[in-house]
């Protein structure tokens, strides 16, 4: 409807502008279509804004007023007002469905009395299931709710349409040959562009707010100090959980460390060879091949850890050494994650090594240094800040990685209270922050229990750690780039 008004506005404004210029579009300030677009925008933007606002406000207002209809006495002990309200909504919705399917006339719906009809059965016959028989107060509230909603929708439609027409008419009245329609339209487009760009900020805000809010709830139920300094992780949905983050952090850091021990030397050496030694032929083959590793989804690495690396390590490494662990281990997850990070480290280091000026290489070679001496003693020290930045970025990746550890590292938390040897055995299964977030938030979850809410606190911790690493890394890399520009 609004769009129809907008379309009419478009043509009317366009024509009016043309008429004002005696049909000669050259006399207009802007192209004719701009006048039309201006009118259409004037119709759409305010009316849709009101529509959106209305849709948000309406349920809130109606709920509060309907909620007052239910006397406190009607709320039995095993329920709460909010549960009652959801019943009210359910019934109101059910009545609508019943009318739509022809199981009930509108008059019947407004006049129903719970003493007289068995509403539960009638609604069940049209597919709306109710948990229990309907109380008189609830039914009355539901009927009221229904009426208010319908009346409000009517008002809403009327006001939105009026607004659209006023907008279109205003723009139409302003359309003449001297009116700067293009500038207005372009301002609107610019506003659109700015709002698109601002989504990034909204997203960050959304992330932070959503996690802060739930974390706040969590700390209302579980002490913050026991969370941050607890050395035991043993959630128990019956209550009395131990939710210390330290075992999880240890698992996360340990696996990341192994991953870095694998990825940094391999990635760095690969980058060095690729940029300093390899001929164009080898580079053309090897570089894309290694970059394929970066394009493979993490779930594939997870499966690789689960099906290939885990069993292989168990059968050929752990068992001959006398360890009787399962296929899930810190080493499995660390190795596979290391493979995943190789291209990440190598492509970043490649960029950084290439940014080292050729004059330094010449200077060293001109003194009679071999290539490897040049690389080790001149290029690497010169590129060191950049490489440190790359390693930090890789660390942040490793810490935030989820699927590989979910599938390869196991579910048991590190047992920091069992002594050092248990805690540092790489063949032991160890769980991580990300794994716990997944397991606490999947399946049936109760968003009031600290065992669920802890996931948000874990998420926030993870976010803060990775954010810190990223910011630091980006800062270092940027500083490094400036040095050679």
């Amino acid at each position, binding site marked *: 409807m609004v769009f129809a008004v907008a379309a009419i506005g478009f043509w009317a404004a366009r024509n009016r502008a043309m008429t004002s210029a005696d049909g000669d579009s050259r006399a207009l300030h802007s192209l004719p279509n701009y006048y039309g677009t201006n009118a259409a925008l004037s119709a759409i933007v305010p009316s849709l804004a009101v529509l959106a606002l209305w849709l948000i406000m309406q349920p809130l207002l109606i709920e509060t007023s309907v909620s007052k209809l239910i006397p406190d006495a009607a709320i039995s002990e095993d329920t709460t007002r909010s549960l009652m309200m959801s019943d009210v909504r359910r019934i109101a919705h059910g009545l609508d469905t019943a009318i739509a399917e022809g199981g009930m006339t509108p008059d019947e719906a407004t006049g129903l009395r719970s003493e007289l009809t068995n509403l539960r059965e009638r609604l069940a016959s049209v597919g709306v299931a109710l948990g229990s028989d309907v109380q008189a107060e609830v039914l009355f509230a539901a009927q009221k709710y229904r009426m208010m909603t319908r009346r409000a929708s009517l008002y809403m439609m009327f006001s939105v349409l009026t607004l659209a027409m006023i907008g279109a008419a205003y723009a139409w009245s302003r359309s003449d040959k001297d009116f700067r329609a293009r500038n207005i339209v372009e301002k609107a487009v610019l506003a659109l562009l700015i709002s698109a760009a601002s989504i990034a900020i909204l997203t960050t805000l959304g992330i932070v707010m*959503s996690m802060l809010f739930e974390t706040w709830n969590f700390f209302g139920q579980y002490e913050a100090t026991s969370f941050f300094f607890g050395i035991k992780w043993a959630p128990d949905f019956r209550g009395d959980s131990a939710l210390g983050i330290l075992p999880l952090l240890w698992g996360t850091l340990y696996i990341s460390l192994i991953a870095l021990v694998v990825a940094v030397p391999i990635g760095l050496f690969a980058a060095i060879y690729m940029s300093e030694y390899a001929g164009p032929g080898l580079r053309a083959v090897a570089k894309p091949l290694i970059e394929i590793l970066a394009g493979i989804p993490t779930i594939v690495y997870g499966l690789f850890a689960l099906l290939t690396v885990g069993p292989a390590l168990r059968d050929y490494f752990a068992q001959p050494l006398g360890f009787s662990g399962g296929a899930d281990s810190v080493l499995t997850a660390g190795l596979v994650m290391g493979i995943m990070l190789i291209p990440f480290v190598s492509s970043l280091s490649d960029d950084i090594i290439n940014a080292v000026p050729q004059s330094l290489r010449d200077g060293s070679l001109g003194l009679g240094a071999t290539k490897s001496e040049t690389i080790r003693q001149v290029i690497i020290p010169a590129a060191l800040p950049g490489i440190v930045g790359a390693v930090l970025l890789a660390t942040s990746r490793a810490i935030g990685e989820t699927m590989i550890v979910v599938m390869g590292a196991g579910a048991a938390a590190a047992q920091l209270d069992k002594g050092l040897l248990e805690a540092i055995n790489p063949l032991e299964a160890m769980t991580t922050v990300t794994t716990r977030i997944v397991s606490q938030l999947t399946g049936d979850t109760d968003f009031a229990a600290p065992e669920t809410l802890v996931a948000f606190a874990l998420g926030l911790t993870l976010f803060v750690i990775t954010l810190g690493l990223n910011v630091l890394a980006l800062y270092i890399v940027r500083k490094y780039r400036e040095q050679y520009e």
Partner: protein
Amino acid sequence: MSTEIQGSSLFAITDNVRRRNLAEKRFRAYGLSAIAVGIIALIVLLSSVLSNGSGAFMQTYVTLQVELPADKLDKQGNRNVEEMKSVSTFGYTPLIRAAVVARADQLGWGMPDGMTPKDMGAIISKEAAAQLRRFVLANPDVVGMTVTLEMLANGRVDGYMKGRVDREIAALDGNVSPQQLDLVDLLVEGGNLEKRFNFAFLTSPDASGQRPEAAGLGVAILGSLYMMMIVLVLALPIGVAASIYLEEFAPTNKWTDLIEVNISNLAAVPSIVFGILGLAIFINFGGMPQSAPIVGGLVLTLMTLPTIIIATRASLKSVPPSIRDAALGVGASKMQSVFHHVLPLAAPGILTGTIIGLAQALGETAPLLLIGMVAFVKEFPAAPPEGFFDPASALPVQVYNWTQRADAGFVERASGAIIVLLVFLIIMNAVAVMLRRRFERRW
């Protein structure tokens, strides 16, 4: 000064140089082996997935003559479908069993000790009875006749045909016995059992934990497709609009800086955090349904945006300023010069970046776990747009889901699903590379 270089001959290689050249060789070897390790890791990774998963594309089918006695299936004898529905799936199981026994007898099967007709029927998938029932209810006229029916073999039998299960394993396995495998060999000889390409793997929905042979990727592929549609429709315009603003219009101020910092950080935020965002904002706060492609699509959109923005800005930047100046010079407004000239020239680069962003989104798993897409979904979602709100699965999540199941047959399915996923990714990346080659412009 110990070693005197001056005056010595160039041809006399000194010890020092010899030692250093050795170090040089070692260093090169390290570099070369690092590259080799990377490539070997890639090869091992891909071949392990391929060898584990290629089996999923073949499936063992059993073709048998099944008798459909009227007195069992249609007691009234009036072929009324509504009445025939009273015979449940369990009513069809004996028919299939009888068909196996009959064929085995024909082929001269001597029943070994300790084996019952029930064991013989068990070589056919439990899905077959349901399949037969659907078939009969769709064609009530076949009751009373004998029809040739092609059925899925049981997962273990399928494994035996593919070499995953042998008699040694079978002796230890409670679900299959060596005698049953003898029967399978007999049926293979009789031409009743064969392996064929498994189209159903791509089209049929997921199946329950005991029937890996019937599980397919249909719902997951559709769910992934829906999410990609949402990501494309949302992320491309928003990403392009944001990039145009940042690259062409944005003044240098605090707000712009804030946006820039945010974008580069969002690109590095762990994906699971986006899952938490989706759960908290879209599902708990916004009241959207769990497991729905719309929520997955929104979350993936937010994740893909930084990728698209970075790619778009790069390709906008590569359009030379002379084009902008030329447009401005003939009296176009800044906005017109961007939309009429710069944007079309940057389009191939934007498209390439978008495809790569979509490919990343397609393989993303962790955030989808949190918004409930890991649930067991057997129903196909409706056509869009309503289908966006129906529960669905997604390719990578389906893989994860299958790996969590007990039956070993699902391992093969999961690896097969990975192959499907990788094929999609390869196609997308190939298209991106082709686009880049085709439209690459040098200024």
